[in-house]
């Protein structure tokens, strides 16, 4: 399976190189005009991808090439430069901003102008996995990062729009294109979870062919789409009655993720969050590790689980202990399984690469069975009379305490580190003490500890009582 992924990556790299070359020809600037050259041999889907890639969706190239009418383009300020059997080339003058009369407008010009996907990023916090449950139609076509949303039927509608979390809902809703069986729209999305609805002649509706829908908490029901990032493929057992995928991501549920039969075996597309995932297939009730995946970890029952890693691994390293027989890594990320992650002995110590997604984790090294915290890591969490090392991956929130310039030590503590008081030492920058952690979506409680004195955040008006009558500051992390 790893070989297949490497092959896929190589193919993708080649495609990117080629597309880079193509881009240079497809979109150029000459004489203060932008030139767009559209190859006419592109399929409708490729045309949609072309439009999205260059942010040219307003041109509706598919319709123009089909009908050969250019009036609308000309009204939009485009000039037809070339229209042969092979290509359509159009151009338009590059205009500048004429009213950039103050410094703010200059800064505004040069600030980031994000794409749709960048403006409305995936909302997958706390989510380990997801898969789609379409009925009466096939899953949306996915090519690289392009997803073709499809609304079946409604061919008599005058207009169908696609609105979702990736369009800021109605604000940037996308006008779908009519096909012979329904309506489609190509959207560039990263892997993750999205919510969407169709707007048919002004009327909002969930996707009737999608069994996944969620209430947004305000009484609105939305359809849910997972842009997958991993395909599980089992090229055996064609004659099996049913095959399920089960792993640590779904708490090893047996009948949760049903795989689809293919010509060669079984398959299912999944969205998997960043991190290390272990899994097995259940073929007519019997558990199997993936026979095509060489990456395995002990399952604790004298067998092995297959492993998928999403994201870059980080290196855990324990210096010394050259006389130890065996060293294992265990932590909250692998349910503290002590004999799953065997570290490799090197000249300097013991090491293991392990992939983790965003979050806060506790861990220990187990040297010949004895647990020790990571001596190279100053952060720890305490509880039950012991201390574990504490690791923050991809912090997404910075706590700030203004003032207190004479304080010698300021710590942060909260539910995210089991209220450990003297671990998360805040750094003095300017006139603030700061510390960054990863906070999941939802409510969190915290306090500062200034020279051993616990205090709520003076810059936060939200606080609530605690069992000691000393109050805790409250922060909500929202989608």
């Amino acid at each position, binding site marked *: 399976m790893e070989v297949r992924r490497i092959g896929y990556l190589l193919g993708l790299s080649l495609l990117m190189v080629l597309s880079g070359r193509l*881009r240079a020809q497809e979109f150029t*600037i000459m004489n*203060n005009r932008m030139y767009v050259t559209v190859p006419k041999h592109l399929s409708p889907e490729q045309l949609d991808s072309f439009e999205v890639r260059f942010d040219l969706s307003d041109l509706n190239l598919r319709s123009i090439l089909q009908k050969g009418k250019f009036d609308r383009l000309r009204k939009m300020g485009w000039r037809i430069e070339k229209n042969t059997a092979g290509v359509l080339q159009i151009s338009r003058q590059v205009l500048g901003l004429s*009213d950039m*009369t103050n*410094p*703010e407008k200059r800064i505004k010009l*040069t600030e980031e102008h994000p794409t749709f996907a960048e403006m409305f990023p995936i909302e997958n916090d706390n989510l380990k996995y997801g898969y789609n449950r379409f009925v009466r139609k096939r899953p949306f076509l996915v090519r690289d990062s392009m997803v073709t949303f499809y609304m079946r039927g409604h061919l008599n509608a005058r207009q169908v729009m696609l609105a979702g979390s990736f369009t800021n809902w109605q604000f940037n809703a996308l006008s779908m294109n009519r096909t012979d069986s329904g309506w489609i729209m190509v959207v560039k999305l990263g892997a993750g979870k999205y919510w969407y609805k169709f707007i048919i002649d002004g009327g909002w509706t969930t996707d009737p062919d999608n069994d996944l829908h969620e209430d947004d908490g305000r009484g609105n029901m939305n359809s849910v789409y997972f842009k997958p990032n991993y395909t599980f493929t089992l090229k055996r057992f064609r004659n099996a009655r049913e095959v399920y995928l089960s792993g640590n991501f779904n708490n090893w549920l047996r009948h949760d993720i049903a795989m689809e039969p293919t010509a060669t075996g079984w398959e299912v597309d999944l969205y998997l969050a960043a991190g290390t995932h272990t899994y097995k297939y259940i073929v007519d009730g019997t558990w199997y590790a993936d026979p095509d995946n060489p990456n395995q970890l002990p399952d604790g029952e004298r067998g092995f689980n297959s492993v998928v890693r999403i994201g870059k691994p980080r290196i855990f390293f324990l210096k010394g202990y050259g006389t130890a027989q065996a060293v294992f890594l265990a932590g909250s990320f692998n349910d503290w399984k002590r004999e799953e992650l065997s570290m490799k002995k090197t000249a300097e110590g013991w090491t293991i690469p392990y992939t983790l997604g965003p979050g806060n984790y506790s861990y220990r090294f187990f040297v010949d069975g004895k647990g020790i915290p990571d001596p190279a890591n100053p952060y720890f969490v305490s509880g039950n009379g012991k201390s574990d090392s504490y690791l923050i991956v991809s912090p997404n929130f910075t706590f700030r305490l203004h003032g207190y310039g004479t304080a010698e030590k300021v710590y942060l503590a909260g539910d995210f580190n089991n209220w450990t008081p003297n671990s998360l030492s805040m750094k003095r920058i*300017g006139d603030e003490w700061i510390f960054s952690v990863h906070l999941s979506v939802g409510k969190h409680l915290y306090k500062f500890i200034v020279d051993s004195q616990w205090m709520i955040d003076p810059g936060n008006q939200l606080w609530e009582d605690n069992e000691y009558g000393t109050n805790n500051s409250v922060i909500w992390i929202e989608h």
Partner: protein
Amino acid sequence: MKYCLLAICCWVTAAQADPGQPGAGPLNVRFPGAVILDSMSCVLPFTRAGNLILVRAKADTTDGYFVIDTGTPNLVLNITYFRRYPTTNPTESGGITGAVTNATQTRVDSLTLGPIQYFHVDADMFGLGHIENNKGFKIFGLLGMKLFEGFEMIIDYDQNLIYLHRLNRKEAATYHSHLLDDTSAYQVIPIDIDEDKVIVHTVLKGKKLRFVIDSGAETSVLDSRLPNKVFESVEVTRRVHLDGTGSQKVDALYGNLRDMQLGDQTIASLPVLITNLQAMCDAYNNCIDGMLSFDFLSLHKIGFNFVTRKMYIWK
């Protein structure tokens, strides 16, 4: 506009080691976090909002974050917080992309930046609400290029510190910060100061191009009217819509500029926004070919000697 740089003060007291202590001395009240090195030098902490550099400064009695903006000539005050100030007749103004505009002008009695004090400073007043909304910071104004023209300025992104040194006449030719001792760590590139703009000369496909070094620019910009040969080195990645007048949208392009020479080094790929910079020529009879944003030039440190006209880019 004239600035009167009256004092770069030096109070060497025990309290300075702990500038955040309330009431410990006048420095503490004015500039929490600033550290005085000697009579002519200071180190200021800064905060980043996106790629903008925010420092705490005080205009008369109003203190808070100001953006260091080498693309703007003057001190600019956010009109939201200085509306009560008396205004003088509108005059011509404009940053590097500014067409001629009628800016409302005012004057602050004192502007304090770390231990540096300016007195009787003319200022332009503009609304800066968009930057505040976009960055989530309360921004009182922009510190334009004229405020730094007599200085050596080194921005240390790793430490979030700005090293400022006011160069007097005697030392102008000889002084350099101790950060410049290791000459192998950085590259020196000559700059010009032209009408309060920092200009650097680059070469692309044999063409000489003039870029403004703009700390207020988050993205580098290239003029779409440059010769076609220049755009042979540009790979366009996508179109982008900019807000024009009212609800009107104006097209611009994103792309990657390849193999631009800056000093002795060749920049393999520079992300640029490509747009028509005619408005700049209208404002100044002297066109520029684009803007270079700070963040691209160095991830670690960047420095300027605005007196000897040098730029230092750390590797």
